[in-house]
């Protein structure tokens, strides 16, 4: 305690007399300051003398006589002053860990959110401080999407911001790399939804168009590569999620196709990056014009990845060859979620996926929305589902499927006990297909969601399928209740503790 007080003394010479005068009394005071603040009647006269000793004892007494309103609470405590001082000098002399917990809390409450990160990053772990920082910087904060940690959120969003506005060739890469030692332990996920291409100062008179965006160039230079993530990702030891979109936002009238170019060099470097990152669990690369060759390059680097669980390549240009590579990945990894929505997958690709799926035991969710696998691919997938015992979610919306697939799927429904959600919306199932699906549903007790909207199914069968789903949902709820009854002491306490 004495050391903690002694250390600020030299930094604030103007207040040094306090500690010189009566260290014993001040220590007492500091020790009992917390509780005594609430009951002002208790303070002994010795204490009152402490802060005002510079003014003189008789003067103190005089004040009491004159001012009935006076109370000790108004007088700032030494600890308060110290804390204020610490806060004021925090960037130069950060003192936090040596303080008592309650004082630490006070210091943290008073610290400004604008402090340089180099000081605060590895020193402050308090969530409330980082919460303030976040709230100060961004109006909307979803801490849930960052693992519930404000500090993580702060660093992740900070880094994302930097990356978003990084212009290769113009911005100094040290800006990002300097941050690396500060944030390496707190960045778990990176969601970058734009990568700016290098700026080439345009000699053309178009320059006035560029003024509002100011960040993107549009000349036909051979090098359109974006920021290379190698060094950054290699430095982030905790990185689990990587969500990238190679595009430019808000380009307005400066639009050019070149802005949305995911080059081969980008692709190769990204492949090397994700291959080297062994902690990566989720990898998303959406809306980036990834074609077959690029997809193959990426997926090849992901083969036998130790941790990867989710792969999202939706809204790209992947065709059958890329999907075949993805199918191979299914058998060479522990992938749990595969999202290939809005690509150019056709029947052969779906067949190769089905082949891999037939004996896969890890994949839980498969999304093939807005492709064109047609009946051939749909039938192959349905055959695969007859042997698969793992997949729970399947999205086949907008795939030009029709009655044959529905027939096979109805068979799958009566056999499979793992599927909980199927989406067949926006297909041409037809009236008969709907009836067959209804038959299949009548034997199924596990399916909870079955989307048949806009698939030309009769309303009656859709309604009846809905009823069956309701019943299934009810039984699933009952099952869950029963299960939780059996393990009630654990589960009952589990959710309560974090809430308090």
């Amino acid at each position, binding site marked *: 305690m004495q050391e903690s007080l002694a250390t600020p003394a030299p930094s604030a010479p103007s207040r040094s007399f306090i500690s010189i005068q009566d260290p014993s009394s001040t220590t007492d005071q500091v020790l009992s300051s917390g509780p005594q603040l609430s009951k002002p009647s208790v303070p002994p006269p010795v204490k009152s003398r402490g802060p005002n000793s510079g003014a003189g004892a008789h003067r103190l007494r005089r004040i009491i006589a004159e001012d009935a309103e006076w109370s000790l609470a108004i007088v700032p405590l030494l600890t308060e002053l110290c804390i204020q001082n610490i806060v004021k000098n925090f960037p130069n002399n950060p003192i936090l860990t040596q303080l008592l917990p309650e004082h630490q809390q006070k210091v943290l409450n008073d610290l400004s959110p604008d402090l340089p990160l180099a000081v605060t990053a590895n020193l402050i772990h308090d969530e409330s401080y980082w919460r303030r920082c976040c709230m100060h910087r961004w109006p909307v904060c979803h801490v849930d999407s960052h693992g519930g940690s404000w500090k993580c959120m702060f660093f992740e969003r900070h880094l994302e911001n930097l990356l978003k506005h990084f212009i290769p060739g113009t911005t100094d890469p040290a800006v990002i790399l300097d941050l690396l030692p500060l944030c390496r332990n707190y960045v778990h996920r990176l969601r970058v939804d734009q990568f700016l291409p290098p700026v080439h100062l345009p000699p053309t008179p178009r320059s006035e168009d560029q003024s509002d965006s100011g960040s993107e160039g549009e000349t036909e230079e051979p090098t359109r590569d974006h920021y290379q993530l190698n060094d950054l990702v290699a430095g982030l030891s905790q990185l689990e999620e990587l969500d990238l979109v190679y595009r430019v936002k808000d380009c307005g009238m400066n639009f050019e196709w070149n802005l949305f170019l995911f080059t081969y060099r980008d692709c190769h470097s990204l492949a090397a990056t994700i291959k080297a990152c062994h902690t990566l669990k989720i990898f998303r690369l959406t809306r980036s014009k990834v074609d077959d060759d690029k997809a193959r390059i990426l997926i090849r680097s992901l083969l036998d990845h130790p941790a990867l669980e989710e792969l999202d390549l939706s809204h790209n240009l992947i065709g059958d060859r890329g999907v075949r590579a993805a199918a191979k990945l299914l058998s060479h990894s522990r992938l749990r979620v595969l999202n290939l929505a809005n690509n150019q997958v056709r029947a052969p690709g779906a067949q190769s996926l089905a082949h891999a799926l037939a004996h896969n035991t890890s994949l839980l969710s498969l999304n093939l929305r807005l492709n064109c696998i047609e009946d051939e691919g749909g039938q192959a997938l349905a055959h695969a589902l007859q042997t698969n015992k793992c997949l729970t979610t399947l999205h086949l919306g907008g795939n030009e499927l029709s009655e044959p697939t529905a027939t096979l799927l109805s068979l799958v429904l009566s056999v499979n006990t793992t599927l909980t959600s199927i989406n067949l919306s*926006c297909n041409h199932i037809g009236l008969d297909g709907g009836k067959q699906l209804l038959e299949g549903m009548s034997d199924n007790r596990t399916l909870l969601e079955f989307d048949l909207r806009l698939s030309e199914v009769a309303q009656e069968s859709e309604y009846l399928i809905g009823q069956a789903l*309701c019943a299934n949902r009810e039984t699933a709820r009952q099952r869950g209740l029963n299960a939780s009854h059996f393990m009630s002491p654990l589960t009952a306490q589990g959710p309560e503790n974090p809430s308090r």
Partner: protein
Amino acid sequence: MNPPGSLGDLEELEGEHLSASILRPSVHSDNPQERIQARRLRIAARLEARRREALGDYLDGKKESEEDQSKSYKQKEESRLKLAKLLLCGTELVTNIQVAADIRETRRRVEEEEIKRQRLEKLENEVKTSQDKFDEISAKWEEGKQKIIPQELWEMLNTQQVHCAGLIEDKNKLINELQQELKTKDDQYVKDLKKQSDNICLLLDRMEEQVKNVMKTFRQELHHIEKAFEVERQELLTSNKKKWERALQAHNTKELEYLMNRIKKVEDYEKQLNKQRIWDCEEYSLIKIKLEQDVQVLEQQLQQMKATYLLNQEKLEYNYQVLKKRDEESTVIKSQQKRKINRLHDILNNLRSKYAKQVKQFQEENQSLTSDYKHLVMQFKEVQKAMRHFALADDEKFQEIWLMNEEEVKDLIKRGFDVDRIIHTHHLGLPWTAPDFWFLKNVGPLSQQQQKSASQILEELLMQTEEEGAEETASDPASYLDLPKQISAKTTRKILMLLCDESGFLIESKLLSLLLPLEKSECYLLRLDAIFSALGIESEDDLYKLVNFFLKYRAHHHSPSSQERMSLTPALEPAEQPDFEGREEESLVEREPEEKEAPASPRLIHPNAVLKILEAFVMGLKKPRDSRPPVKLRKEVRDNSKDSEYWQALATVIPPATQNLWDALYTALEKYHLILTQRAKLLVENNALEQQNTELQLLLKQYLASKINSELQVPPTEVLRIPVKSKQT
């Protein structure tokens, strides 16, 4: 892109979605409250339907139980279902936009593909036609080069220009078309963008609305649930309070009752107690009087008992004294007896030791004696062995000596006989016959003829009969004569063959299998051998007894008159009556010719009867065997009674008459000898004279032949010639 279509889709979708509910218009109304209400109603209706369907049969049973369950639970369930429904419907409503966009997109893609295909086709066609045109134009250039007249050339150039312009125009048209298309597409793109932003706005609206609705309904449901809980609590409280009051009242009344009862009972008991007390007092006094009387009587009895006690004490003291004395006496006697016992013990021990010593001594003696005895036995055995050895040696030596002597004697006899024969033949001119004596043929020491074993006889017999066939002559009786029986060999053989055939059961099966490869005769022999060993026939006699038995049996058959008698007697004791047998033999001898006449006679013995005969025979044979002395001394004492006779006979082999003859001959021969010797002398003299004569003749010749004679006037030769010549003639 087809914005109107997409809008229609969306509406259609919503219509479809909402058509499930009956209160469709109200859902679409602008007032959110009303919409919520409508949805709630719809949800309730669905819920009801679902519940009816799900519960089905259990409905009745469950209804009661549900009624039992608290209102709050029901409320909770209801709200839960309602909220789930709301959430589901809300999400559906929100995602409807996405789904609509999806289908729009898919449709657009399909259309786009179609248009793209058409466009490509169109372009290809265009390329083809323009190429044709171009070819035409370029062909015309060639044509133009040949033109010389400037007008024509100019005309042609003009036409070429027109053609080119047409081609370019076509191209331009196409380009314009495409640009037009691009423009429309651009417009459409802008429209689509707008549409999408509209959609997003709608989505946002719906989401917001959904959130609001959900929050509101959640709050409402929470409120409902709370209310329900409160109501339930209140109800519970009131009901419990009522119950409590009722219970209290009941308790009070009951307590009062108990109190009254208790007071009554107390009074009753007091009365009873009083009664009991009085009664007890009376009884007590009565008993007291009675007991006092008893006490008096008992005291009297006590006095009496005391008197008798004293008396008894006196008596017992006296007895005690007496017993003490006796005890002393008995102790004295006891000590004496003890001493005696000790003494006797000593004696007994002495005797025991002595006995043990003696036993030891005798055992030692016994041991030495037994060892002696063993020793002696060994010695005796050795002696016996030696004796046997010597006996054997003696026998051998005796035999050798006998043989030697016999040889010597035989030699002598032979010489004698030779001499005799020479004398008879040469000197007397009589025919000489060699004497024939039995002993001459004897070789070796005299002994009883050894009995042949049955098998040997069999062998002989069989061999003989075989030879017989070859010889054809009647069986040689001489060879068979050493057997005393007169039964023909043939008959015997036949009988034996029969026996052999019929009694195969006596032979061991192993032997039979061994016999198979052998010759017939050998086979018979071995089989018979086996049968005989089984029947116990050992010697020649037994065999002949058997054969005789068979013959007898047959005889009885032939003479049925005597059959019974005969069949009985041999069955009883066939071997014990030699006389009878003798007679039988005689009769058999007589019958022999008959047998020969009928060679098939043995066949008359029926094969079936063979067994009976054998049985009878064996029964008979057993008895003499049993009576025979069990162990014969192997070594018989040699019968030497005939030896001297034998030797005597050998000595007197040449009879005395012959000897006399020899004497007379001897004298005559001596005389003859004398004469012969004289003649020999004379012959010698004669020879000598002759020799002298020859010598002298030689000398004379010599003289006559000499030269001197010739020289002489008168040769002497002439003188002498005449004599010499005469002499020579």
